[in-house]
């Protein structure tokens, strides 16, 4: 789960979900799938509809079949399964570029086409790095370090990249 916005609310929200995930594991003896967590996050956000968590989230993970999924949220819990997304102060800079590079299929198509983008892992990571390097050019709130989390069948891996070294 990646969140942007008010840090105290972000921390509180992530802590809340981590606790709920632990309870789920106790009750169901398995990890939550990404779609399950997606619903939980939406409900948690809407619960505070009239005093929101100032947190703009993107949820990524694996579904029950082991395929990747990405969900994007607003601060009060509206969510959608997408092939890619960005939130936060740099999103206005990043989203158009992603649209250009990844051309998501229209949700109006029948039969419904999968929202998974056909990128290899190395290409995807490179794209993420490019995107943040570009965002940091014009968005003052984008920081000086990037953390990339890669989730696949082998597990979870983290990569870091310095930004703004110029």
């Amino acid at each position, binding site marked *: 789960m990646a969140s942007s916005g*008010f*840090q*105290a*609310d972000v*921390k*509180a929200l992530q802590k809340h979900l981590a606790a709920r995930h632990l309870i789920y594991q106790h009750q169901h003896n398995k990890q939550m799938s990404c779609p399950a967590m997606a619903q939980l996050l939406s409900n948690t956000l809407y619960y505070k509809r009239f*005093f929101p968590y100032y947190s703009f989230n993107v949820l990524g993970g694996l579904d029950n079949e082991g395929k990747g999924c990405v969900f994007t949220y607003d601060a009060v819990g509206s969510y959608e399964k997408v092939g890619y997304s960005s939130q936060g102060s740099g999103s206005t800079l990043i989203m158009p570029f992603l649209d250009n590079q990844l051309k998501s299929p229209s949700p109006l198509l029948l039969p419904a086409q999968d929202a998974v983008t056909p990128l290899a892992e190395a290409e995807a990571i490179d794209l993420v790095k490019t995107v943040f390097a570009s965002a940091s050019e014009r968005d003052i709130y984008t920081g000086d370090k990037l953390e990339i989390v890669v989730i696949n069948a082998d597990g979870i891996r983290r990569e870091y990249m310095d930004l703004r070294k110029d």
Partner: protein
Amino acid sequence: MNFTASKQPESCLLGPESDSQRTLYPYVTVTSVVALKYKDGILMAADMGGSYGSTLRYKSVERMKPIGKHSLLGASGEISDFQEILKYLDELILYDNMWDDGNSLGPKEVHNYLTRVMYNRRNKFNPLWNSLVLGGVKKGEKYLGTVSMIGVNFEDNHVATGFGNHLARPILRQEWHENLSFEDGVKILEKCMRVLLYRDRSAVNKLQIAKITEEGVTISQPYSLKTYWEFSAFENPTQGAVGSW
């Protein structure tokens, strides 16, 4: 039937009557706290001035206090709220001791407790107007964290509150490294406090430095920093200035 007099709910913001029930602005304030991790534990520095608006009202304010066996708390902001936090922590440590089970709350736990308190008060629109620094060592593991009045919290190798964020952290970022000796740590803190003394109008030249290690807490006697005011650039500041004002 309910015969109790109607009372506005806790977080009701309507009307001046309910404003007297919550903090709107601070009255007596204290300025920056600066802290860093060093070889044996945590070093923390804070001056001793208590301001009442622009008046320097109190000159011997101690704002670093040991908490339990493993932690040291430093605070900036409203003094009365800091005193209330100390009361909360007294109760927390008391209950922890009364279990009498050989366990004790470490700095991580105390920091987490404080984060919850500050965040929940912020959510009720009745904040404790403080920025807190919580440092300590437990079982050899050093911990240094900070919480603000709105609940922003994180841990790091060096932290500062208030003006310290702007003036001290750049110095710390450049000069801090792992396994600082006690003397080097004090030197860096004094450098930070000197810059704050020159540039923070609410700073006073009377400070304490506190140390917490596995062995315990030591808070130094109050002392002053040497300052230098003879920089030639300030001797005749308007010489060479162009303009009408």
